[in-house]
């Protein structure tokens, strides 16, 4: 299968818009929840805190929205891996896998130090 630059551009654009849109909806809903319920403590969060039972809904929604936003570029990388594997462009599939590996390492090692 030969490279299809137009498909690359179209898929990347679509993924970025979906990620941004989802994050915007989550954070916007969190903002509305904050306005409805009044000021809530908004401590700095670690990823695991987002699922804590006592966390205010507005803070949880904002936090998940931030997580979705932060993950959007990574999802874009994964989508390009899939696209380049389908096109049998092994060189660039390997490039994208290397980028994904560094991103994974960033999250995995982030809890140390």
């Amino acid at each position, binding site marked *: 299968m030969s490279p299809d*630059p137009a498909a*690359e*551009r*179209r898929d*990347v*654009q679509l993924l*970025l*818009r979906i*990620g*941004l849109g989802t*994050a915007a909806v989550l*954070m916007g809903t*969190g*903002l509305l929840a904050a306005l409805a319920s009044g000021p809530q403590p*908004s*401590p*700095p*969060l*670690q*990823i695991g*805190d987002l699922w804590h039972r006592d966390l205010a809904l507005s*803070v949880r929604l*904002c*936090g998940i*929205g*931030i*997580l979705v*936003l*932060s*993950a*959007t*570029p*990574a999802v*874009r*990388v994964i989508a*390009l891996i899939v696209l380049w594997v389908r096109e049998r462009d092994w*060189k*660039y599939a390997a*490039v*994208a896998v*290397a*980028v994904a590996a*560094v*991103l994974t*390492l*960033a*999250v995995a*090692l*982030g*809890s140390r*130090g």
Partner: protein
Amino acid sequence: MVIVPLLAIGFGVNIRYAIGASLISVIATSSGAAAAFVREGYTNIRLGMFLEIATTTGALVGAFVAGLVSTQWIALVFAAVLLHSAYLSGRPRAEHISHDMSDRWARWLALNSTYPAPEGLQPYGVQHVPLGFGLMFVAGVLSGLLGIGSGAVKVLAMDNAMRLPFKVSTTTSNFMIGVTAAASAGVYLRRGYIDPGLSFSVMLGVLAGALVGARLLPLVHARWLRILFSLVVVTLAIEMVYKALTGRI
């Protein structure tokens, strides 16, 4: 670039949380702009992905170093980057388009490409790929350390070293910034340096400011914008140095 010093100096926010908030706003604005630019055909996606190996690795290193060094040292490095940006903004940006397609690395990685121009698709060749890769690593380290997009270093790499057309380097750099910032944001999220309320507020403010700025841009002479930008940035840099040396940051 001004978010971190404004939060740290103006609002007394711990510089690490200021960097976390800045990273989130960088991802948001970069992803939004990339979604618009990538379809137009200026962005060299393959070049961007290849250089992202360097920027994300650099960002990982920078984010780790940020956790080890004192906030005073971070502020001093930030001040140096601000002064460099002020210096670059005062210089005209020269375009160095290359039609030389012979670079070994560019040919092996199929990096040479075309960009849309009024006269049709124009070819360009990518030069000095290893040098550009190294400069992108430095850009990544600064991004992870300071929570910025490192546009100044990326411009240096893409315009001067790799000889890309302006619109290709700008859009490809913008395409890469989101992934670079995401690498650092992953570290900051795991360490609890992301304040959702602060990050969301900063992101909303930056997006609103960008919309207003886009409306005002045609009304303001570029020379005055450059002067204003340089004044603001130099003032912030001096403030950062003062607070770092007196231990107030």
